[in-house]
């Protein structure tokens, strides 16, 4: 009420004078109705212009204006998700991410100072002067990459310094950086990330697991350049989802040692390539998987494409005599033979339409089954394996994991070759007994040997600690590793003791070099003829290998080493035996495994 009064009082004085002044005004400006009409028309005109504009803005084309307004001030920023790290079993990074930037140039602006800027960039970023100069001078372009994946601090510093020195036309943009701090250590497994995506190894196979999802923030900014947020403006934010880490079962330091030892052995024997696998016997975890030659993940371009992966997984080869262990373990499991089974081994043995020979010339030899293994007699093995009934050997080998992928999660893995039941024939079976006419990859072979070490129970080998799903949707890792009994515990331990004779039998043993002083060690040599991929025939070159485990009576590690085409003509014992010994000794010491202190096997090898 009081307010109304106030208003009235305010208004009254304003109204009152107007009627009084009308006569004079009328006289000056003409009659009232004309003035009213003119005024009305003017107002109507103005209002109809407004109305027309309103219809134009809201009715005809509302969106383009809204979009223009939005574009003026709305800033949409990508919130980068961080790619997961790849870690070793102790959490040491094998691959990690950090903020990186790419340095870009606008040649239109840089053209006039190009030589100076190129010199500046060569000094600050270490780019090649000549190519930088060409880029800075490029005609008709407004966007040139100067350097990609530069550490954020370095790139920002360089661009700021350039601005300070008066060089225009350089800027930076986000370009996440992937670091491989250990260079070639486990590079064969980890793979690497190219400029635009993962290109090899686990980086590629587990890309979806590692990648994460970028978020974005959309908000009104005071100016699109500064990007300062306008309070109370629109603010849509989708938080980024960081990628998951991938923890491997690999032990970085052991991996280094294995790689270096393998490199040394391959070079010393003038061999073509080599591979080595270390597996934890009780868990099936792969502690080390080495390839030589390999590549440097920091500089993949320096190595040929064929080396930028794991040949231990993708290349299959004929395993040779190491396979005899599996043949014999099956026989023992069936109760068809015992380690002391006496065999009269002739110098040559007819199989199909060819003769089988041993690696050394001999007449009739009297060997026990243990002696056959220790001396690595092909003929003795075939004679013993003749006791298998049809299809039995193939069943055992399948159970040992041959002829199928080990399921580590890397799709580059090759399944190897185990003849199908339809194409299986007795002559091939004889050769398969001692590891020819069958091809495997190094991890398959390690897992098979590990079955013997682990008391006859095969554990799926795993490379991923815990579990993770790879790009093809397979869940792999230690959590999903299956255990299956292949041979009885007794058969396994007897096989293990026979393998001990390979190393400790002073007469018939073929690999004294593989011994680890103080420990009981079991192992088996292999020297196989290699199939040449071009002629599909045995070309006279060999694959030498050694696989085994220690301590014999309580195995902790299974180590398998294979070297292709040694140029010095060495065999499994001389070339790979010492590598096995060094790696095994290092692993036992590193994990503090004490010797078991039991008496070594003295199984008779002859009779």
């Amino acid at each position: 009420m009081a307010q109304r009064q106030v208003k009235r009082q305010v208004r009254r004085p304003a109204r009152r004078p107007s009627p009084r002044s009308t006569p004079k005004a009328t006289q000056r400006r003409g009659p009232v109705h004309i003035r009213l009409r003119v005024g009305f028309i003017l107002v109507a005109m103005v209002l109809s212009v407004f109305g027309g504009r309103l219809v134009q803005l809201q009715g005809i084309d509302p969106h383009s204006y809204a979009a223009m307004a939005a574009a003026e001030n709305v800033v949409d920023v990508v919130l980068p998700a961080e790619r997961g790290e790849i870690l070793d079993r102790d959490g040491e990074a094998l691959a990690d991410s950090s903020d990186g930037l790419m340095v870009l140039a606008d040649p239109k602006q840089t053209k006039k100072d190009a030589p100076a800027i190129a010199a500046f960039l060569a000094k600050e970023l270490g780019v090649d002067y000549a190519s930088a100069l060409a880029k800075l001078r490029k005609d008709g372009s407004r966007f040139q990459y100067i350097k990609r994946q530069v550490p954020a601090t370095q790139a920002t510093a360089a661009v700021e310094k350039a601005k300070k020195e008066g060089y225009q036309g350089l800027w930076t943009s986000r370009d996440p950086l992937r670091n491989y701090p250990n260079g070639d250590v486990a590079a064969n497994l980890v793979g690497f990330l190219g400029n635009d995506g993962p290109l090899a190894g686990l980086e590629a196979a587990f890309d979806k697991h590692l990648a994460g999802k970028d978020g974005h923030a959309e908000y009104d900014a005071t100016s699109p350049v500064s990007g300062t947020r306008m309070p109370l403006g629109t603010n849509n934010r989708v938080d980024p989802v960081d990628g998951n880490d991938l923890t491997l079962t690999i032990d970085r330091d052991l991996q280094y040692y294995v790689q270096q030892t393998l490199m040394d052995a391959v070079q010393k024997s003038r061999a073509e390539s080599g591979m080595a696998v270390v597996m934890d016997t009780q868990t099936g975890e792969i502690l080390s998987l080495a390839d030589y030659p390999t590549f440097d993940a920091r500089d993949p371009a320096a190595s040929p494409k064929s080396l930028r992966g794991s040949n231990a997984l993708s290349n299959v080869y004929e395993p040779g005599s190491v396979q005899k262990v599996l043949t014999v373990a099956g026989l023992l499991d069936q109760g068809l033979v015992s380690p002391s089974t006496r065999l009269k081994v002739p110098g040559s043995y007819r199989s199909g339409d060819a003769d089988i020979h041993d690696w050394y010339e001999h007449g009739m030899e009297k060997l026990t089954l243990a002696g056959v293994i220790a001396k690595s007699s092909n003929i003795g093995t075939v004679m013993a394996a003749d006791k298998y009934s049809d299809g039995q050997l193939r069943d055992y080998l399948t159970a040992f994991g041959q002829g199928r992928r080990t399921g580590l999660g890397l799709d580059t893995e090759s399944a190897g070759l185990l003849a199908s039941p339809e194409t299986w024939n007795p002559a091939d079976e004889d050769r398969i007994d001692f590891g020819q006419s069958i091809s495997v990859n190094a991890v398959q072979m390690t897992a098979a040997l590990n079955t013997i070490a682990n008391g006859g129970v095969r554990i799926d080998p795993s490379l991923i600690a815990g579990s993770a799903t790879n790009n093809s949707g397979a869940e792999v890792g230690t959590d999903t590793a299956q255990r299956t009994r292949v041979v009885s515990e007794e058969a396994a331990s007897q096989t293990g003791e026979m393998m001990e004779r390979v190393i400790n039998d002073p007469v018939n043993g073929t690999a004294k070099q593989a011994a680890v002083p103080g420990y009981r060690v079991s192992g088996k040599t292999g020297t196989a003829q290699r199939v040449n991929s071009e002629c599909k025939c045995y070309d006279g070159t060999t694959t030498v290998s050694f696989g085994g485990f220690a301590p014999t009576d309580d195995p902790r590690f299974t180590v398998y080493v294979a070297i292709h085409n040694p140029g010095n003509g060495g065999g499994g014992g001389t070339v790979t035996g010492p590598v096995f010994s060094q790696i095994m000794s290092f692993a036992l010491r590193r994990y503090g495994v004490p010797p078991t202190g039991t008496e070594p096997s003295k199984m008779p090898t002859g009779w």
Partner: protein
Amino acid sequence: MSIAAAPQAPGRSPDRATETQTRLTAVPAPLPAPMAPRLPFVVLVSMLLVGGVVGLLVFNTSMQQSAFQEQRLQEQATTLAAREQALDGELKKMEDPHKIAAKAKDLGMVVPQNAAMLRVPEAKIEGEAAPADRSATPPLHPKVAKPYSVLVAEQKAAEAAAAKKKAELAEKKRAQEKAEKQAAEEQRTSSGEAR
């Protein structure tokens, strides 16, 4: 408003008016409406108004200010994060087994090929200790820069390239010969025609 204070309207209960016949008496002049003093009210309202506007202004300014500060801190956080990452990266590079092995080698350290273990409670020695020599220490770098298989691959590639070149050359030569032959034949025929 002033009427409201007057006695009852005569038309409302005429009977009672006639009955009692009370004389009309003068009533005290109507009191001026109990109006609240105007000044405090006006002051209050304008203070609210001004206070509100100023408050809003201050609030807005401070929000804007904090937006700027947020941006500044954000930038600082980004820089610090990048710095932290750079340092972490350096640390990781130092932890590279290659580097550690090289440093250890410089100090004259070797990998023992065999070590014994002491069981203190039982006063027992397990395993065989051997004096450490260099036999179990792998070299830091490959002796041959390019591994054999790479050399072989390169040689093969070079041979293939040479063979290809040779084949191309032969092809060219053949084509040339053919062209020459053709030209000669043409000449012959044309000359024959001319004859």
